[in-house]
């Protein structure tokens, strides 16, 4: 039987064509870059980025994305870059963000339990 997720089965109804929300602004682009591994999500950053301020980190992430997509590496979310983000694609990440130096706070004991799996 076909699965449904709404009690009234309204999600099975033929729906008008649902379109993905275009990536057209900074927050959407940030979500894109985070989702596909080009940048850390802002709330996941635990230490200062090796690239400096969040703005600089974003620009660097955009540049990395632009480079592999054969776009001018301006670091700016220009029309061509946004168009590349809106292309049909697989939902898996492409890469992972640059490693960040995460160390214990001063005075924090390092135990096996404290280490991340």
């Amino acid at each position, binding site marked *: *039987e*076909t*699965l449904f*997720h709404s009690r009234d089965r309204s*999600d099975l109804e033929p*729906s008008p*064509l*649902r*379109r*993905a*929300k*275009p*990536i057209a602004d900074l927050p959407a682009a940030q979500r894109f870059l985070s989702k*596909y*591994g080009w940048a850390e999500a802002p709330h996941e950053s635990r230490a200062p980025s090796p690239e400096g301020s969040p703005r600089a980190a974003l620009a660097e992430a955009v540049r990395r994305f632009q480079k*592999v*997509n054969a776009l001018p590496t301006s670091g700016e979310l220009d029309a061509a870059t946004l168009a*590349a983000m*809106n*292309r*049909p*694609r*697989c*939902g*898996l*990440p*492409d*890469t*992972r963000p640059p490693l960040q130096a995460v160390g214990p706070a001063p005075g924090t004991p390092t135990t096996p339990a404290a280490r991340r*799996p």
Partner: protein
Amino acid sequence: RARAKRFLQALLPEDPPPAGGPRAFSKKTLTWRLLGEGVSSQLALDEQRYIFRLAFRMWSEVMPLDFQEDLTAPGATVDIKLGFGRGRHLGCPWVFDGSGQEFAHAWRLGDIHFDDDEHFTPPTSDSGLSLLKVAVHEIGHVLGLPHTYRTGSIMQPNYTPQEPVFELDWSDRKAIQKLYGSCEGSFDTVFDWIRKERNQYGEVMVRFSTYFFRNSWYWLYENRNNRTRYGDPIQILVGWHGIPTQNIDAFVHIWTWRRDERYFFKGNQYWRYDSDNDQAHTEDEQGKSYPKLISEGFPGVPSPLDTAFYDRRKQFIYFFQESFVFAFDVNRNQVLDSYPRKITQVFPGIEPQNHPFRNIDSAYFSYTHNSVFFFKGKAYWKVVNDKDRQQHPWLPSNGLFPKQSISEKWFDVCDVHASTLNM
């Protein structure tokens, strides 16, 4: 959300699997199924299943794994489950976004989901998203491949419209073989098939094709492209008419100024093949029917044979059985007096212990390499030729170089699951 992220991070490039888990399937045959609750509303069910069957077969043509559709086993035992869904779908934590952008996702060693808000189309269509291409990509993830931006790779994250010929290129093949190894295995016989064609000027051109036979199927090997023909293997009974449909022992092409005869051998019999009509002769010029007994057509030659090859320069056929070789003079129609001899005597190893010794699978003269090769198991030994002796006069005549791996010289000669042989 955290669980979904862990799943996706497991597929990042150059990343070890989570918690030291496996990077690849360890089974040789994987089962798959299109979920009944996950059938697309856009294509006929049979068409969806055919496309997935083809997608899996394309991978099995280049790796030592094959795939079987399983419609009956309990769902939990099926290795790879595929399904279509919209938005929140199939109990999956990762919600599809509607038409555009994300079209599918997959889990390493796991399942594949397709966004049914996308316009998936069959391979013959030049619009929409080719379901075949997307499926091949997602299966790549299931097998353990990450995204790459290399031009021509099927693992590019973005969809590119399907070219007229969509196949797995050299780098994709090597990437998957890095995880699963190359295809290996013994062959029944290997030979070059000569054909004469006339070019646009009416001149006769001689071309050849290389064939590998194993069990009941065969591959045509494209030497210039270092791979088998797309879509191979094919069943012997489909491509060769009138000869045994499996386990051929040997093939010989007697080619002189006056003779052009091609023979297949199996058991104590042999068949002559008519190249012009692409079928075995039913009878010879005297009206005697084929197949004939080897003992009658080649007196002094035993059967069953391991293999044979024709030496054009000497005009001998070398027949091999166990540890012996028989040199048959095609002009006198008899075995030379000094034969049979030990294979190790006639074809001595340059390194004495590095030799097949007996039960050679196939003796193959390659026009590409202008050399004879002995195949046994996964290995081959190259026979010293004139050019080798010009460069290294100390090499013994007809000596055997140390063994090498067949899969490192003839690439991607891979089995597929029997259920996909007729695609």
